[in-house]
């Protein structure tokens, strides 16, 4: 049985709505393209130790081998004689890790702030929105640089910094959703059944407010990967961890003679960000209730 047939079979057995959702996923070429590329990177990140055993930072061969020159190192080596393929594979791990954790931090803060501001309105809203504006008026990248500069540039600091700089977008999105949904009849119904505010926020409104946030999340991960690459390029990086941005930074000196040292990680970043954007676009189409048949 082919995968498609299996999935279709699964769809027919699930509840009608889930079946429709699943089919919508399968019939969205944008989403599938993004998911396949993203899946490839996730695979690299998860099985890096198995694909390229050994420390990627080891000097394993003579420096600046061009791709294809030595089949033991198919993508060549850098100025210190480190395997580029191995670096790319381990770089996927660092980039995705930073991307996902930064987006999670941003989502967590943004969703809580946005939900509270949107649901309660009035003074709570005014106060929280001033806080959001405070963050929004600061250039994101500058804020990240400052936070990383204050603390050790470790992977967790970088993720935290990016998360702290990116939550206002989510907060505004959540607030808009909650503001319209709190007036919905089913929220009134929930209140007339004696539910508390917490319960209404978490159980009634949140699931209805999620679709645009899920879309935003994929773009946030992409942005976080880009920001991390930018930081690494500026040498604000965790020296013990290989990342794509760091590889570009290292390759900068040899840009004219060995351009592949910057082009390969650059392409990896571009593909990863593209795939996340494709997934986001696809999700947007799929989760948009107006597109439901």
């Amino acid at each position, binding site marked *: 049985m082919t995968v498609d047939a299996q999935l279709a079979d699964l769809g027919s057995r699930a509840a009608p709505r889930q079946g429709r959702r699943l089919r919508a996923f399968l019939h969205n070429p944008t989403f599938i393209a993004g998911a396949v590329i993203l899946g490839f990177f996730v695979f690299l990140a998860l099985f890096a130790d198995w694909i390229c055993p050994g420390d990627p930072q080891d000097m394993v061969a003579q420096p600046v081998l061009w791709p294809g020159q030595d089949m033991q190192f198919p993508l060549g080596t850098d100025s210190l004689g480190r395997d580029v393929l191995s670096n790319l594979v381990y770089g996927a791990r660092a980039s995705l890790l930073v991307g996902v954790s930064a987006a999670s931090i941003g989502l967590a803060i943004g969703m809580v702030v946005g939900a509270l501001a949107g649901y309660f309105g009035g003074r709570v809203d005014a106060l929280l929105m001033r806080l959001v504006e405070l963050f929004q008026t600061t250039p994101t990248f500058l804020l990240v640089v400052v936070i990383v500069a204050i603390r050790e540039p470790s992977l967790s600091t970088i993720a935290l910094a990016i998360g702290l700089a990116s939550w206002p977008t989510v907060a505004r999105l959540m607030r808009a959703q909650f503001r319209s949904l709190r007036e919905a009849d089913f929220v009134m*119904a929930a209140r007339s059944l*004696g539910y508390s505010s917490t319960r209404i926020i978490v*159980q009634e409104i949140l699931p209805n407010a999620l679709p645009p946030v899920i879309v935003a999340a994929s773009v946030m991960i992409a942005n976080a990967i880009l920001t991390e690459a930018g930081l690494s390029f500026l040498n604000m990086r965790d020296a013990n961890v290989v990342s794509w941005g760091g590889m570009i930074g290292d390759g900068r000196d040899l840009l004219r003679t060995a351009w592949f040292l910057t082009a390969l990680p650059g392409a990896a970043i571009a593909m990863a960000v593209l795939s996340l954007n494709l997934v986001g676009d696809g999700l947007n189409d799929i989760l948009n209730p107006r597109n439901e048949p």
Partner: protein
Amino acid sequence: MSLLAVEGLSVHFPGHAAVREASFAIEPGETLALVGESGCGKSVTAFSVMRLLPANARVASGRILFDGKDLLAASPAAMRDIRGKQISLIQQEPMTSLNPVLSIGVQIVEVIRRHERISRKAARARAIELLDLVSIPDAHRRIDDHPHNLSGGMRQRVMIAMAVACGPKLLIADEPTTALDVTTQAQVLDLLDGLRHRLKMAVLLITHDLGVVAQWADRIAVMYAGRIVEQGGIAPFFADPLHPYSRGLLGARVDVDSDEHYLTDRLTEIPGSVGSAAAAAGCPFAPRCPIAVAECRRALPPLVAHGARAVACPRVGPPPSDGEVARRAGGVMTPSPAQTRALPHRNGEGSKA
């Protein structure tokens, strides 16, 4: 003691008063129809009972006694325990009143478990029973449906199932059938009436459809511009409406039995349009009233007992003296024991049209 006694309730929005000095009572197990045109304060009255008024509304005065407890003085937590358990609400719009992302079973189970300590499994069994009770065919399969799988009438049945899930003593139905077509409307109202007898609950039926009132209510309270202008049993109301507004309303209907037809004859209308509830002194209906006198424009006529009924019009003569002395002593309808005895006479089932 009345199940629900609303006494002198006034609700103010910034700039105008939506409800002014409204008083009425509901006895256990009876259906009181609250009737009036759009914007006259029916829904606001209902939402005040639930304490679910919009943030900019304010209860300016009055008491709402439910089972003897003043709901306006209850703590928010106590109020949440009352909502859904003692008093339930059915809204106008069944299409949007269910959470679109949760299956109806989950939503019913949630209500039951909110108010009762009961296992998920037992609650689910109860939910199936409830769906059965509101005549949803194939309840054990429909329970996993999402709201968008159901028609408007079915959704309103689910809403009713949720509302009666914890056996409330009072069910507030805010125009429960306005969004439904006429045949579904009759089914839903029959269902509500059946449940009322079965579960022994009282119903506050908010509507603007006098046909619905005639068929399904025991007593009626007519609202005009935020005031209750007439109150009484269904049979005497339809036989002999007291307030000029009530007369106008009944006069504006097409009677099936008469030879009149809206194509051949002009319907009787009430001249003018509804005045603002914030109008200055005097009876709010005076500008449209055919029998108004100068006195009507000076002071707000209080709701006074008129036999077993009550009316807020000084131009209505005393009730025909059939042994019982006309109690037109005057004064706002306050919970003096004498008046509570005189006013809300429970009508027998036979009084239904």
